[in-house]
């Protein structure tokens, strides 16, 4: 059944090297509508790099990307956004010196008929989306550098969902958050998933994402160890994949899986 559907995103045999280091080596991963795929691995396993290729921040050396079954050419962040791919970066990627509305619309400003910035309209829109996400947020006039970690995070999330994303990439979305805020992000993920949006969750901590994800994909040393549906594997088995690169029976092994002798 699942095999017949066209994946929202299909990244095939992606490689990229920085200097002599193969940060991502022949990695393949896919994502279906309304699905949450957790991309796991140690720091430096190549998760963020792989996903930055999808979001246009890095240019791949080889491999291809298919969006809705059609080959996509993504060579910069603008291209990715055209395909409805929105990213919430680990660093949040906010311009600290301007306010929330300016950040939400950065690169996609609302203009007046005279070709000038329509700050009023942007702030009004920002109030709407922030009201949905974080109803108590009021500091619209201040540069985002003055906001708390959680508030900055909600600005980054709001930016990603404001423009009707079809594919959402969340790189360590809860790294800067407390337990309550983490739960809020979890709720948001479920809500977006119900809307049919495909989500990549990137984390180095399995506990953060195991319950939210439909599938996990584990990377190690730039290679994919294996992919598994969360119902087919246990947390311990996934930990084994992350730490040892050992692929359990419930998972589909990738090129990075440890070769077990006989």
């Amino acid at each position, binding site marked *: 059944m699942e095999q017949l559907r066209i994946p929202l995103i299909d990244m095939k045999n992606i490689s990229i090297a920085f200097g002599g280091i193969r940060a991502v080596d022949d990695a393949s991963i896919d994502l279906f509508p309304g699905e949450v795929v957790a991309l796991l691995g140690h720091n430096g396993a190549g998760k963020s790099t792989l996903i930055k290729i999808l979001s246009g921040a890095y240019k791949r050396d080889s491999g291809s990307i298919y969006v809705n079954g059609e080959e996509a050419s993504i060579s910069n962040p603008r291209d990715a*956004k055209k395909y409805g791919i929105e990213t919430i970066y680990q660093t949040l990627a*906010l*311009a600290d*010196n301007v306010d929330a509305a300016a950040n939400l619309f950065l*690169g996609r400003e609302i203009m007046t008929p005279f070709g000038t*910035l329509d700050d009023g309209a942007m702030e009004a829109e920002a109030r709407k989306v922030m009201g949905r996400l*974080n109803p108590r947020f009021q500091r619209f006039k201040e540069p985002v550098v003055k906001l708390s970690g*959680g508030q900055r*995070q909600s600005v980054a999330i709001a930016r990603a969902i404001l423009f009707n994303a079809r594919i959402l990439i969340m790189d360590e979305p809860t790294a800067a958050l407390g337990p309550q*805020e983490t739960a809020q992000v979890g709720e948001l993920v479920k809500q977006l998933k119900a809307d049919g949006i495909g989500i990549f969750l990137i984390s180095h901590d399995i506990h953060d994402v195991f319950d939210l994800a439909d599938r996990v994909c584990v990377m190690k040393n730039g290679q994919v160890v294996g992919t598994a549906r969360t119902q087919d594997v246990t947390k311990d088995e996934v930990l084994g994949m992350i730490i040892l690169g050992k692929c359990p029976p419930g998972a589909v092994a990738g090129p990075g899986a440890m070769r077990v002798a006989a």
Partner: protein
Amino acid sequence: MTDATSNLPLDRARESESGPIRKFLNATELDTRMLGMVGALLIIWIGLHILSGGLFLTSRNLWNLSVQSSSVAIMATGMVLVIVTRNIDLSVGSVQGFIGMVMGVAQAEFLPRVLGIPLGSPSMWIIALVSGLVVGLLIGALQGFLIAYLAIPAFIVTLGGLLVWRGAAWWVTSGRTVAPLDPTFQLMGGGPAGSIGATWSWVVAIIACLAVVFMLVNGRRQRKRFKFPQRPIWAETFLGVVYCGVILGAVSIANAYPWPVGIVRRYAEANNLTVPEGGLFIAHGIAVPVLIAIAIGIIMTFISMRTRFGRYVFAIGGNPEAAELAGIKTRWVTMKIFMIMGLLAAVSAAVSSARQNAATNVMGTLDELLVIAAAVIGGTSLAGGSGTIVGAMLGALLMQSLQSGMVLLGLDTPLQNIVVGAVLVIAVWLDTLYRKRF
């Protein structure tokens, strides 16, 4: 996401506790930093007035001050954008000198001799100015390209430019000074002829006051449209009265400065007027270079605040990586900034050479430092991401006030340099303190 609420009641509590000054600042939404600069300027003016025995705050000195500040103020508006994006431009003084030579040679030698257009023909000044603007744009584009696309640090590219363009300025005529310039072109430099006179100055003042009122009313309407909090009416009225008062005051000072007696006599002879007993009073009014500087200040403020390009400039300054990830073509924006800087250096070159009625290969020497100092004193942070056009122009006025004031006091040039240098350092130190506190 929780602590957003806790701040709200706290802020209100603080507001009710605070004194009338804070309430006033909240109501008018005035920038305290800008107020500080205006305050510093006034203190310097009054101090110099007292020290010079009443020579500083005269219509003549203030009028000259406005003309002398124009050239640096024009370039400082562009330097704000350059510094906001964490770059620097050390070449503006040399570029100004080079373009001055190009425009001078164009109108005094090339056009008359090669194309047979005589000096003083109506199209002459336009051709000269446009050729200068084109050269400025090209120089800016070249330097911007090297910085943005070849990733050579702006410091190095423009340090090279500092030497290259100064050398090029010499090369144009092998160091010879070019004079005189076209009479119409000269109007850009000020002087009795290069001022718009009393009547037109009042017209400009009234238009400016109407613009202030329109902007205040329009601001209210915009806020109403999106149901944002409004400034109280008394604060709006106060702002309107102050802004219009400053405009009318400045114009009345410019109108209080009469033409020198000799020029009045020649003017009277040429127009068959009889000079009455006690002399004929003909006011200078606003000088053309000052009008040019103000117009550029308004245009640059508009660009930086109201256009997409301006928004990107600040976003790049705040976080270059975020700007890139947001899909902004950061390199193209950077190149455009340097192109604007080149254009402004050309305008500044026109003003400076017109004022001297000559193009010399040393024009603009060390101006890059004055321009950078003006921008920095005006609140542009070298760390990038913040700065205002108005602040930089005020900074230029402040630097020029110090310099002319010290000339009035009869201080030697070395001592002048020491004072200006010290003021720059102290100003930036005060700014650092201010940024830490607020």
